[in-house]
Each structure stands twice: as structure tokens, then as C-alpha cells.
């Protein structure tokens, strides 16, 4: 087996590397389309009103 050739430190890194990749995949699948926040924010609107927004800020 691959991990048996590593010592504890490297073996841990090997497992954590795989586990973190798996975490990313699972998270991505679960939250693929879960967010219900605003879908589109028109940045071009911001561009047009940039001077006013800057003044407000």
C-alpha cells in the first residue's frame, strides 16, 4: 500500500491531502445550487454611478 511506505509525518500529509480534496468535492456537490442570495449584481450600474457612490462612501 502507498501510505505504508511513508513515515507518520508524510503519511499524515498524504491522508490529509486526499481528505481535503474529498471535502472540497462533497462541499461543492452539497452547496452546488443552495445559495439564495442575490443572483446578479449589475456592476455596470455601479460604474455609471461610481462618482455618486464614492461621494456617499
Amino acid at each position: 500500500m502507498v501510505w505504508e511506505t511513508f513515515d507518520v509525518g508524510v503519511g499524515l500529509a498524504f491522508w490529509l491531502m486526499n481528505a481535503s480534496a474529498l471535502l472540497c468535492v462533497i462541499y461543492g456537490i452539497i452547496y452546488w445550487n443552495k445559495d439564495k442570495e442575490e443572483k446578479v449584481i449589475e456592476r455596470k450600474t455601479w460604474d455609471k454611478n461610481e462618482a455618486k457612490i464614492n461621494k456617499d462612501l
Partner: protein
Amino acid sequence: MNLIENIVIILYLAVLAYLGFVGYKQTKSSADYLIAGGNTHPFVMALSYGATFISTAAIVGFGGVAAWLGNSLLWLTFCNIFIGVFIAFVFLGNPTRKMGIRLNAHTFPELLGRRFNSKFIQVFGGVLITIFMPLYTSAVLIGGTEFLVAYFKVDYHLALLVMSVIVTGYVLAGGLKGVMLTDALQGVIMFVAMIILMVMVFNAIGGVDVGLSKLEMVWDKTVAPLSTVPIKELVVGSPDFLMKLSMNWGFQGWNKMPVFLSEGWLFIITTIAMGVGVGVLAQPQLVVRFMTVKSKNELNRAVLIGGIFIIAMTGIIYLVGSVTNVWYYEFNEGKNALQSTGGVGKVIPHFINAAMPRWFSFIFLFALISAAMSTLSSQFHAMGTAIGRDVFEQLAGKHNPNSLLITRVGIVVMIVISVTLAYFFDKQPAIIARSTAIFFALCASIFLPTYFGGLFWKRMTKKGAIASMFVGTIITTFWLVFVHFQEAKELGLCKMLFGVNSLLSGKNYLCGCNDGCFTSFAFNCSGCFAHDKARESSIN
């Protein structure tokens, strides 16, 4: 080169030119040029982030370091995925995106500057990027050029020039839209090439288990005998010198961690894993990508794509890098990788050209050119916008009609500086990995506390942010110039002023612990300062 290779290269360049043109056609406002209009597809965004993140520095530079120091580099892959993708996208991505939109920020320094209502922070951030990013850019240029030299057997300077000219073209024309589209294409090429590489390498050495288990035998045959040789008898910078150095640092084999708290252990954990792994969170050219998507869903989807992409890139190349020792031992007269190739940065290019069939070398050529160009284009874009948007526009007045022109001129100037550095740095040992680690550590020290504070801590003040950036800049620079042995020795200022190469010469423990501590230190300083201000105002 045969006819088919010529045709494929021309096709590749034509597709890049086309994507640059698409970016150019779709670029109608400064938001389009600076943040790709804010409506990027998650697949493009994730691959662009990954391809920018993973450069030739990771493949050629750190792949070569894996051949030298072994699989302990897998800690970096873990940090790359867990911190660089999961933490970055899940916890930082959406707050950054929302804050960027609310503040109408187009660059990373602008995000920080507007968050703290400080023109100074934006200008200071822009200046720091302009000063320090060429170091990393030159490392990426060297990595890509080394492979062109190995493949085409051409002059290093010619290869350097050709690559720089091509990247300049589509960055100038297409802005971030062009950059991200080409990044995505290049990410796909890198991914496919890396999967084929893994299959072919482990097939050539008898499988994953066999290849990795043979590493111990190769270490015993080629490195262990050096334990009786004094390092002073070895030629400085030679392969045996480097291997002996690794033993002196506490490395015990390619499948083992260095001795706990030895210089090698600290190098792997603080400089490589933490320095590069954490430093990625505050990379200006990566943070700006969070502002290019329209909703959190795109970021969630990018987590999946990014996780797979990064493990396929760094996980594979570090494992392959270390097992090149087995291949060279078996097929090159009992020598390990460094002994066969002569240098850390030469291992991967030499291995691909010597061990793999010609057709794969050709595919890998594109993967490496893609890795180099995707990172370079983003770096040049970040440096150009730092000059045009963050420095010039802030100092010359907003909506200056010349700011986009200045950005483009800035890109050209920074390319010239980066190419010049790549010209001079090429002969330095392990310069690619070192420059990358230094730049990532600088970003972590200078930008990360302010960035985190800006996102998550309402009580962080403008003065706290400025103090944090100053502390990070001064201490990291001081450490590099006067303390961290290799950099201090190369720069020579410490020797000139104090007569020694490093103020901590001989104290390996402290010399090795070089980068990660600055981040926490800067955090503490900014935190204390901001807290103090808040407490003071509450008392009043």
C-alpha cells in the same frame, strides 16, 4: 520540430489570440478590464484561480524540490487544497465578493483602501505589489523558460523573450476577461497533462507502491554514503552538496519527515507549507477573482473544481518529483535525480524530455507553457492595475482618462523588470521555489491581517490596518535582508554592515523559522492596536 508540432503550436497560439480577442471585444468598461465584468462562469473562475495559483514555480520549482527533499512536500499540497481552496472559497470568497461590490472595488489594494477609507492603504498596497511581485513573476518566467530550453534546445534568453512577448500581447488586449478565458483553457491542458504524467511515470517504474518503496533503497545507495563526507569537501551548489545539505538540515529520506524541529522540518512546515499555503490567501491576483463572479453559488461550485484541480497538480507533481530519483537510479547508471540533472530547477524539464516519449513531452510543453502563461498574465495584470488604478489614479485624481493607458504602460514596464530579474536569477539554486515562498510570505505578512480584519472585524481601524501593513513590511524585509541566511547572504547588506552573512548565523533553529511567525506577529500588532483604540474610545 516536425510539421505537426509546428501546426499544433500555431493552433495553440491562434486559440490564445482568439480568446484574447474575445476578451478585448467584451471589454467595454473599467470593470470589464479589471474584474471581468463580475459575471464570470464558475468553471472559468475556478480553473482560472487554479491555473493562476499553480504556476511553473509549482511544477518545475517545487517538483524539483520534491526530487531533492522528498514527499514531505505533500504538506504543501494539503495546505494548497485545504487553505488555498476550501478556506479561501468557503470563508473568504463571498465576503470578499460582497464587500468588493458594495465598495465598487476593482483591485485588491482598492478593496482594502475603500474598506478603511484610506487612499494611503490603496497606494501603499499598489506600491508593494509593484515592488515585490516581480520577484515571483521572474520565478515563474524562469520555470517556463527552463522547459522551453530543454525541449527546443534553444538559447535561454531567446526563450525568455518569446514567452514574455506572447503573454504581453493578450494581457494588454483582453484585460482580465482575456486572462481568465485563456487561464481556463490552460487549466484544462495542465490537468490532462498531469493525469497522463502520473499514469506514465508510475507505469514506467513498476507502479505506485513499488516506485515509492524503492525511494528508500535509492536514498541508501546515493545519499546515505555522503554522511561520512564533510560538506566542505563538496563543491558548493553541486548535487552532492545539496543532498549533504539536506542531511545536515535533518532530512532522513524521501519518504520521511525531517527530524522534528530541525532546520529542514522548520523549512518544510514554516516556509513551504505555512508560508506558501497561508500566503495564497492574500495573493492580489487571486483575491480579485472572488470579485469576478455574480453569486455565492459560483464560489461553491468552484470549490469542487478547484479541489480536484489542485490535487491533480501539486499532489501528482510532488509524488512524481520524488520518484524521479528511482527512475534516474534505474535508467541512469545508479544516480539520483539531482546527480543526473545537475540542479533542482532542471529535474522536471530534464526528466520529461529524457524519460517520457516525445509526444508526451510535447503535451507537457503546453502544460508548462500554460502554467507559466496563466500565472504570468494574471501577475502582469495585477501589477499593471496596481500602477494604473491604485497608484496613478489615486495620485492623479479619479476617472483620469489616462489611467487605462497607464495600466497598459505599467504592464509593459513590469514585464521588462520581471524579464530582467529572470535573466539575472537563472543560475541561483532552487531560486524558483525560494522566490515563490518569499513572495507568498510577504503577502501573508503585509496584506493578510488587514484583509482578514477588513472582512471580519468591524472594530479594526484605519490606523490599525496601516500599522499592520507597516509592521508586516518592515519585519519581513528586515528578516530577509539581515536574518534568513540564504537571502541575507545573497543580498550582502548584512555582510557589509555587520561583517556576517546573517545576524543569526549558526542559530539554525531561528534561521529556519522564518516566515509563518510574521503573519501572527502582524496579526497581534494590528489586533492590539485596534483593540486599544476601541477601548480608548469606549472609556472616553
